[in-house]
């Protein structure tokens, strides 16, 4: 039972993290390596707003999410827009942005901007306390995570099926040329995708970070998780991403129960390698392998 609940929480965590990345990749085919860094940035900004500026928690969250979307937009506008189509450069550039943000945050005090001085930056959970569910104690925060996940997926679903912008995003994701012929501006859509994607990263951050610490390492870890979900689920496939989140989420929790927490990473690596060897385009991968691209 415990595994079921914690496994679900873990899976939703992965899903929350991966959703922003998948959105950006699906729409613009740009793998946003800066995803993890925005996650950490939002966590840090929220912490700063709450602790240094004494803002209301909710307000801090909203503010940092807004900043995150703007940053995502700027990343696209300034850097990526010139590199569209050159896959090599896109990857390198977003990777570089990621490092700038993460390593920049790692620095110690520059011009009044406090860097990470220790591992003790912690976001307080939104709601303290636990409740008992089926005989297991579970924090409210974890329930919030599940709630956030479900709400997010529903909201995104509605957004992409029923709003003009959402439909345009889907159009570009399915067939860029055709959508452009119908008047959808590919660059503008990519910018929107980047800002929503960044906001999603931020949302994931405020939901999940209270469970642990904020540090630069988390940024790399989050990026790896997002990439792992996409590889296992299939780059560009939403269903695959959700499925993969659950596969990984449960696999890791089960392995913790059986072998101990240290083997989690090994299990993750192992799953990736297995997928690459036996089903390279991912569980539900629609993007075909190299072979079939004649």
């Amino acid at each position: 039972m415990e595994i079921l609940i914690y496994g679900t929480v873990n899976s939703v965590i992965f899903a929350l993290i991966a959703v922003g990345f998948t959105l950006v990749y699906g729409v613009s085919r740009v793998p946003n390596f800066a995803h993890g860094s925005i996650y950490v940035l939002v966590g840090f900004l929220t912490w700063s707003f709450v602790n240094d500026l004494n803002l209301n928690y909710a307000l801090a969250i909203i503010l940092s999410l807004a900043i995150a979307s703007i940053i995502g937009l700027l990343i696209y506008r300034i850097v990526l827009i010139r590199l569209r189509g050159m896959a090599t450069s896109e990857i390198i550039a977003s990777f570089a942005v990621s490092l700038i943000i993460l390593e920049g945050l790692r620095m110690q005090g520059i011009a009044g901007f406090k860097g990470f001085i220790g591992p003790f930056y912690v976001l307080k959970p939104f709601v303290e306390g636990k409740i008992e569910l089926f005989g297991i104690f579970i924090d409210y925060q974890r329930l919030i995570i599940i709630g956030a996940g479900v709400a997010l997926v529903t909201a995104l679903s509605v957004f992409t099926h029923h709003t003009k912008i959402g439909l345009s995003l889907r159009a570009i994701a399915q067939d860029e040329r055709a959508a452009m012929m119908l008047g959808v501006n590919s660059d503008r859509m990519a910018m929107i995708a980047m800002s929503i994607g960044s906001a999603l990263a931020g949302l994931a951050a405020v939901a999940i970070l209270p469970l642990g610490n904020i540090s630069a390492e988390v940024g790399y870890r989050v990026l790896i998780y997002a990439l792992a979900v996409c590889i296992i689920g299939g780059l560009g496939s939403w269903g695959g991403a959700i499925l993969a989140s659950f596969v990984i989420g449960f696999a890791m929790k089960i392995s913790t129960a059986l072998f101990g927490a240290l083997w989690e990473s090994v299990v993750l690596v192992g799953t990736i390698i297995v997928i690459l060897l036996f089903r390279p385009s991912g569980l539900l991968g629609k993007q075909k392998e190299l072979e079939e691209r004649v």
Partner: protein
Amino acid sequence: MAYLLAPRLLLIMGLLVVPLFVDMYWQRVLCSAGIYALLALGFDFLAEYAGLVCLGGALFIGTGGYIAGLLNHYFHLPPLLTIPIATVAGAAFSTMVLIPCLRLRGIYFAIISFMFPLFAVFIIIALNVFGGTEGISALDTFPSIWLELYLILAAVLVSLFAIRRLVNENMGIILRGVKDNDQAVRASGISITGYKTRAVFIAALLGCFGGAYLSHLYGWLGLSLFAMDFSILPIAATVMGGMGSLVGPVLGAFILTPMSEALRGFGQLRVVLYCLILIAFMVYKPEGIMNYLERKYHQFEKWEEV
């Protein structure tokens, strides 16, 4: 033609002669620069000639370094043996680990190569093997600073000229073909996975040599052999120096490494700086220094004839 020869001679002479004029600290820096140069060369080769973006140079350094260090520590083999063994074995291991993603589109290679150094760190910490978080120290070092220096510089020069030869030989042509139009290569009866594997192996040889050398340079192996630095600085050096020019990345490495040393006091600011330089070049001068110079040279050449 002589104009093209002169810069090359300048480079060789420069590399061989400069070490004689600087003090020990900077000589050590040159050694580091040499390692980065090997990585940058490997990166450029893979990216421009095989179409594979390798975001994990650290994988090669770490693998080579760990194998050499472990051979030295547990089996007491001297550097003379550990370095060659680690170079080849490390390259074989790294290549095998990367093979599953060679059949797939380039982006998978980028992602996987990025993840592996970090995974290696997770696994070493989790299983607490190979010295765990503390690493292993008291490995053999080189008997003299001159050997250290000229070994790595020689390695850089040899690799540079070897790869330059390679890209004009059959293998290089096929690789460039794969990059331009892989389906046509397959229609010509050639297995592209096979050639990509060879390309990765070659780049891995360079990196693993660097790693093996590094562990004997400081006599120590640890998790820092998988540091992000080794993945990002070669990329910055390549973009700055000029992708595809092979010499450019080497040049870039010899510029960025001393610069990063000079900024050592600023801690992680260095990485931020490499990345800012990287992005600046990518956005404003994507061809990089060497390609720019070469283009200008051709322009001047045409002027003269008129």
